[in-house]
């Protein structure tokens, strides 16, 4: 089964870095300069070191006050609305985001502008603009991601399907009409295991909800290979069995639908609320693939698929993360204790 661990290039990495929700910490390494005149440091697509200024308008936001910099949102606003050099700078930043993900092995570039504005019209305009811009920067197909079907529609309408089909992220029982949109735009589609009236509470409900969506998609004429199922990944910090709920659902869906369907998920959700998130995310990617997944919505620059699958599975870090994700570490106690002692770093050796 596992043609991915040995060939990470087969992993369908839906790169999540062009999201307006992405945050850098003001006290972190990527922000330089004095209070009030800070810049975001980045490496451009050509490898040179560059800076994106944090505009004054951003400094009156609560995010900034509390030490957070929404760098993608800043770059998008500069690129879309800025004049001259400012627009060029924002565009260059976005180009770097696309380029680095492509080099790291991304299969799709997922684009989400939900936090660009609260107004649907502005979200739609931003999505349309960004889909066009990203298509000019990269050969990779775009995954149009929003919690609002209208914003997804705007993105798909702007997409030029010359080289590759787009992805629609996502459809679910609460918005099954997104399936028709996928068909109309010849898009592949992420279907989630969300229910009509709430999030699924265990493995069985995930499989049942996802199955209804898969069956509906097939009935409408989509192929198994067009469908990427997200069984929904919940934080292990909240309940020790949340990892298993997702992994077991992946196992059951793979057994039920065979080898053609794609199984994915937002892998970094699993580590919300605990420290040292990277090794936990990477370990969960490995466990999900072992259970039958062939892709994930991930940050491929932080950990590329080839780095993830080369992880030393004998290391203490991997073993503690695995135990925690498989429900064997109540309250994440052993994992957090080891993290505090600095023992997790051993697991990051690649």
């Amino acid at each position, binding site marked *: 089964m596992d043609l991915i661990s040995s060939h990470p290039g087969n992993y369908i990495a839906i790169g999540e870095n062009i999201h307006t929700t992405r945050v850098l910490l003001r006290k972190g390494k990527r922000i330089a300069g004095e209070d009030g005149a800070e810049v975001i440091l980045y490496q451009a697509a050509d490898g040179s070191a560059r800076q994106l200024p944090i505009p004054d308008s951003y400094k009156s*936001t609560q995010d900034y006050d509390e030490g957070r910099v929404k760098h993608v949102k800043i770059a998008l606003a500069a690129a879309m609305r800025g004049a001259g050099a400012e627009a060029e700078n924002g565009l260059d930043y976005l180009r770097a985001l696309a380029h680095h993900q492509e080099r790291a092995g991304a299969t799709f570039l997922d684009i989400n502008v*939900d936090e660009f504005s609260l107004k649907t019209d502005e979200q739609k305009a931003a999505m349309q603009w960004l889909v066009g811009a990203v298509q000019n920067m990269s050969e990779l197909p775009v995954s149009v991601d*929003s*919690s609002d079907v209208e914003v997804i529609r705007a993105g798909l309408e702007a997409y030029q399907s010359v080289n590759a089909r787009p992805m629609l992220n996502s459809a679910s029982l609460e918005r099954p009409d997104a399936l028709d949109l996928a068909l109309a735009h010849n898009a592949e589609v992420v279907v989630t295991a969300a229910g009509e*009236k709430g999030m699924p509470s265990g493995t069985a409900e995930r499989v049942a909800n996802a199955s209804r969506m898969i069956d509906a998609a097939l009935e409408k004429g989509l192929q198994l290979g067009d469908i990427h199922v997200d069984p929904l990944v919940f*934080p292990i*910090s909240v309940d020790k069995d949340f990892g298993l709920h997702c992994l077991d659902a992946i196992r059951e869906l793979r057994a039920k639908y065979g080898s053609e369907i794609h199984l994915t998920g937002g892998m970094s959700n699993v580590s919300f*609320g605990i420290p040292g998130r990277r090794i936990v995310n990477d370990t969960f990617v490995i466990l999900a693939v072992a259970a039958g997944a062939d892709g994930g919505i991930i940050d491929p620059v932080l950990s590329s698929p080839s780095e993830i699958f080369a992880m030393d599975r004998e290391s203490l870090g991997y073993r503690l993360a695995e135990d925690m994700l498989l429900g064997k570490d109540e*309250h994440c106690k052993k994992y957090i204790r080891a993290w505090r002692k600095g023992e997790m770093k051993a697991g990051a050796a690649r």
Partner: protein
Amino acid sequence: MAELSDIANEFIRQEIKEFLERPEEIARNIELFARIRPAMQDIAAALIEGEDGDVDQLTKQALEEGIDALEIMDDGLIAGMGIVGIKFREALIFVPEVLACARAMKAGMNYIEPILSDSGVEPVAKVLMGTVKGDLHDIGKNLCIMMLRGSGFEVVDLGVDTSEDEFIDAIEEHRAGILGMSALLTTTMPNMAKTIEALIDADVRDDVMIMVGGAPVTQEFADDMGADGYGKDALSCVSLAKKLAGEKV
């Protein structure tokens, strides 16, 4: 002025020394723990460590020894939770650890609650909690509910995808003092404002203090929509609810 050495429990002394940084918080906690009796310090220490079995045992024992239920709640459980809140705010502890502390709190409150209600002591306040219409996310809201219940609040959980009418009906049915609304999506956050407008139209807005939270929500949005408060995480939700309960009385 009390000194750190006036605190009997070594673990508590260590916690204050190691984890507290703001001078006013150090002074306040030294004053507090120096005043309270060692048995209560032991309960607070067990709670800070997230040991629900120990908190259960120590609370039962304290009650058998005739210590007042209110004293156990204030000087043991709530005093311990105060330290937990500071450590979480400073990112010195993490969500699973806070949840363990909340369970420990609950273990103690299981004894305390019935005694308080028998003797006519009301819960701190009654809180209605719901995720707004169109939004199915409830992990954050459920964390808030656990922490509120652990801190002596009575909570009615309205679940996810809560319509304006469901909020209005709940206000009329439960006579709660506080209404908490959650939204995780930028696309559903506007439904908080719409709900508040609907409460005004139904003439029940002034029956409750309204608090809001969720990933995209900020103080600014909370002010704009006319909420009474904003909490950025489960622990600020508790301190906010306490503040709003005070204002309501």
